[in-house]
């Protein structure tokens, strides 16, 4: 079981650019979606000048086949968007980002852990429910689970030929982040700001 909490206007404004497509993922029995806070945040973002150009709704974003189909349906809105702002659990956001490598993805919510049976959605993507989703800075790739050490401030010295020092068959998560950033012609400016330190009070582990 998990809970998503919408991020604050202050956190999101600096990472939203251009025309923004908003996508909430609703209807999942595993995850609680805070509708009121979501609506309030959108109003705040709009009145601060963010261009929330359109909105479409997904459910079960974590399921690749469902999401692929919806991407077809909403192709027009997607193509028009510069940034996709997603409100879903970490696995959903990563599934979405994995399907469209050329889009800038920003996580609009933080995923928290709640004790209890977490349901069953097998996925190659993983979310540790760290409670402070960083994927808006890391181009839709989760540094907590895609890096063997869960490093938040960049690559360690152990990557060789793009593979992680822990396992030659596993891509280095930080290399993936940089590759995606380069593919998007994105900048590492926001990522370079400040020092990221985990708050374990917010996390499941």
């Amino acid at each position: 079981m998990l809970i998503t909490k919408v991020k604050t206007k202050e956190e999101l404004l600096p990472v939203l650019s251009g025309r923004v497509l908003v996508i909430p993922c609703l209807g999942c029995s595993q995850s609680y979606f805070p509708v009121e806070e979501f609506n309030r945040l959108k109003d705040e973002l709009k009145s601060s000048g963010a261009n929330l150009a359109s909105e479409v709704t997904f459910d079960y974003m974590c399921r690749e086949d469902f999401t692929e189909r919806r991407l077809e349906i909403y192709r027009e809105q997607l193509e028009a968007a510069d940034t996709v702002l997603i409100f879903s659990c970490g696995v959903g956001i990563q599934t979405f980002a994995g399907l469209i490598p050329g889009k800038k993805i920003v996580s609009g919510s933080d995923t928290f852990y709640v004790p209890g049976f977490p349901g069953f959605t097998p996925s190659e993507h993983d979310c540790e429910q760290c409670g402070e989703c960083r994927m808006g800075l890391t181009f839709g790739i989760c540094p907590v689970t895609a890096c063997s050490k869960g490093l938040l401030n960049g690559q360690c010295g152990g990557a060789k030929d793009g593979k992680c020092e822990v396992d030659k068959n596993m891509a280095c998560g930080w290399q993936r982040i940089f590759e995606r950033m380069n593919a998007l012609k994105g900048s590492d400016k926001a990522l370079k700001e400040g020092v990221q330190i985990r708050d374990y009070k917010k996390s499941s582990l």
Partner: protein
Amino acid sequence: MKLTDLTRLGKFVVTSEVGPPKGINLDKMLHEAEYIRGRVAAINVTDNQSSVMRMGGLAACKVLKDKGFEPVFQITCRDRNRLALQADLLSAAMFGIENLLLLTGDHIVLGDHKDAKPVFDLDSVSLAHCVKRLEEGFDLAGNKLDGEAPKFCKGAVVSPCAEPLDPQLFKMEKKIKAGVEFFQTQAVYEPEKFEKFMKRVKEFGVPVYVGIVVLKTVGMAKFMNENVAGIHVPDSLIEELKKDKEKTKSGQTGVEISARLIKDMKNMCQGVHMMPLGWDDKVPKILEMAGV
């Protein structure tokens, strides 16, 4: 003395490295240190190097300091959370240990306690930030320290020959912003690549001490090419090691290659960091041949 003070005085900084024993007998480590007494500005003490459990680096640093050596305390985030890291940093300050090398650390599974819990509560960047906070008189949670704040000289590592290089440069910049004052590098065997790297990091304005690992055998060179990140031993050097088996076995080839590398790169950077891996007795000869 702080390594950066030496650089500020215009000195070319030479450091080397020893590893604590797996046990409590320090004879071998101290013997290795004696070979380089007077020839290096400081000696790094590794911290459970390659995730293999050994005697603690802090105790080894203290012993070296008592014997008149200047230690560099290497500290990794692999085995300790933020409380233990800060506790060890304060202990180091209390012993008068000034130079630090702040590392994320190899993953647990590369070492000899593969079933242990990997910690990585902080990483090299947040650890640098943490040291800076201690120097400002506060712990990482914002509590005030009692009395005088510790003062350190904060170092970190970078891989100049990593491919791609951008993620390394990104991290290097983050480390500098977090307070890192000098860099020792991963072993370099390609002066042309190092030159390009130095051009790109010049604007950062922090001293870089180039890493040298003495090549012992052809097998070692090939092993590093296969398995060690950020290291590439060019074919020409492997051929040189192959050519005269006796000379390579005696260590002479490794000494000559190392001295040549230092000569080629000494004008590009502010110092050299020797990683002799037990061949400490060869270090004075290398430095002499390289003219540093």
